[in-house]
């Protein structure tokens, strides 16, 4: 909305406020609503603001009656100099454009999300949400998630220590049994002890083969866990990212494989988003890698990358014409180590999509998938197109 639209809206809102009493309209609002008038000094600087009216949520928050707040100066009502958020409100009145701010207000020990709206004639309204509970829940979750990532890192690291021993000593046993066989060769040939010969030449190596296969499997699982925990713990460097350049780079990296299988990749004009370039590269590399891995061998792979811009967000989609995913698997594909059997012979560690989800969460984003078996899948990621704080 531009300034003149806001001006018109502000004018009509003022009318509305004059014809109906504010407390009447907004009294049932959960949101804390108040109307103020900015006060300027002779030099034209905002020095204070006066409370014109407030709804019952506003009165409850302050623990006051309507007559106690009307016409009170903010510096007096809040016992604060300067008046709370006066610079932000001044800019709202001055520019005639609304502003949102998220803030911690120490005197009340609460977090607020405030939208300030200009109403014309130095008047402005504030619509405030108390987001303390949300915020606390969020902080708790974020602490828990950090703790979990730490556990994940420590356990996967420490579990590798005994694994190195199992592998190393199994290899050694293998060598030793080969040596025993050689030392006993003459004896075995002369005595013809077939059972002992078989045990040393076949039984023991076979046993060790299974031990080593198990160790290797466990090692790859631990490496996958380590990779996931590293993604979670990675420090982000959030900058505007040219998504077209990023995706072209990824396609370039995969160009050999893509041309070998005769695949084509179409990339639309994509909006710039905010994020960590390395992590976003990993995210889209995983999605494109999956499109290649789960392609339909009966037709040429076509990957289409597009985006829809929204309010401060954009949805980026990677669409393929691959094998598609059955409905019953859709809820589970983001889970760690979940693999859909029978759709591919390609090896994988089963963490690609978990990493995608983790990276999206680090970007305050979301992931989504739509799929039709036999037709293909669309993986979408919601990312921020304005600056943001890591959750």
């Amino acid at each position: 909305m531009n300034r003149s639209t806001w001006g018109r809206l502000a004018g009509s809102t003022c009318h509305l406020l004059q014809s109906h009493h504010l407390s009447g309209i907004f009294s049932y609002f959960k949101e804390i609503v108040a109307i103020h008038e900015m006060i300027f000094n002779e030099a034209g600087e905002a020095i204070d603001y006066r409370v014109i009216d407030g709804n019952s949520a506003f009165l409850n928050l302050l623990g006051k009656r309507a007559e106690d707040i009307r016409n009170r100066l903010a510096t007096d009502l809040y016992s604060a100099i300067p008046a709370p958020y006066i610079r932000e409100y001044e800019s709202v009145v001055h520019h005639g454009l609304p502003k949102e701010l998220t803030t911690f207000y120490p005197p009340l020990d609460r977090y607020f999300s405030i939208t300030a709206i200009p109403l014309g004639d130095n008047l402005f309204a504030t619509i405030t949400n108390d987001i303390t509970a949300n915020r606390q829940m969020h902080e708790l979750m974020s602490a828990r998630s950090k703790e979990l990532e730490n556990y994940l890192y420590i356990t996967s690291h420490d579990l590798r220590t005994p694994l190195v021993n199992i592998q190393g000593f199994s290899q050694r046993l293998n060598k030793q049994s080969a040596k025993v066989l050689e030392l006993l060769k003459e004896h075995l040939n002369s005595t013809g002890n077939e059972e002992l010969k078989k045990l040393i030449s076949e039984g023991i190596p076979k046993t060790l083969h299974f031990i080593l296969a198990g160790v290797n499997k466990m090692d790859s699982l631990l490496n996958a866990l380590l990779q996931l925990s590293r993604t979670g713990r990675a420090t982000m460097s959030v900058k505007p990212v040219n998504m077209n350049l990023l995706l072209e780079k990824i396609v370039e990296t995969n160009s050999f494989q893509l041309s070998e299988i005769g695949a084509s990749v179409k990339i639309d004009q994509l909006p710039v988003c905010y994020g960590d370039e390395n992590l976003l590269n990993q995210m889209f590399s995983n999605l494109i890698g999956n499109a290649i891995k789960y392609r339909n061998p009966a037709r040429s792979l076509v990957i289409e990358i597009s985006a829809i811009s929204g309010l401060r967000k954009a949805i980026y989609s990677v669409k393929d014409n691959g094998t598609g995913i059955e409905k019953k698997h859709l809820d589970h594909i983001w889970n760690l180590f979940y693999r859909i059997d029978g759709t591919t012979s390609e090896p994988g560690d089963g963490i690609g999509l978990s990493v995608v989800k983790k990276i999206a969460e680090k970007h305050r984003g979301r992931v989504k998938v739509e799929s039709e078996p036999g037709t293909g899948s669309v993986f979408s990621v919601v990312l921020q197109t304005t600056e943001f704080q890591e959750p």
Partner: protein
Amino acid sequence: MCDSKEMTILVAEDDPGHAELIVDELKESGIHNPIRQFCNGQEVWDFLNEKDSDETAVLNYLLLLDIKMPKMDGIEVLKRIKSHNTLKKIPVIMVSTTDDQPEIAKCYELGCNMYITKPVDYRIFAESLKRLGLFIQIVRV
């Protein structure tokens, strides 16, 4: 360097199995230098710290240093060695369980000469140690 004296390999490793595998593999790759084992960072640091004035002895050491060890970890030992006037000349090879990039970068920043990951695939491990053997030969020359 010091061709009159044979180089001694110091192995600081808290896991007895890993220590055994390392020593075993060094021998198998044709390295017959004397080997001295330590089971934590404090032990190897005390040993080196005592020798700090004996430059000839110091120049004949090569240290294989595990990172995660009780009492004093490998990073701390590396930090102390590389900020010590005499001891900093000792070649240090870090041996770790993970290939954590920040950790590797930190070790090189502190002045380690080489970083080896203990792979579960023992053949790769043996290969690394063979190359290490070559490295030791070069250091000796």
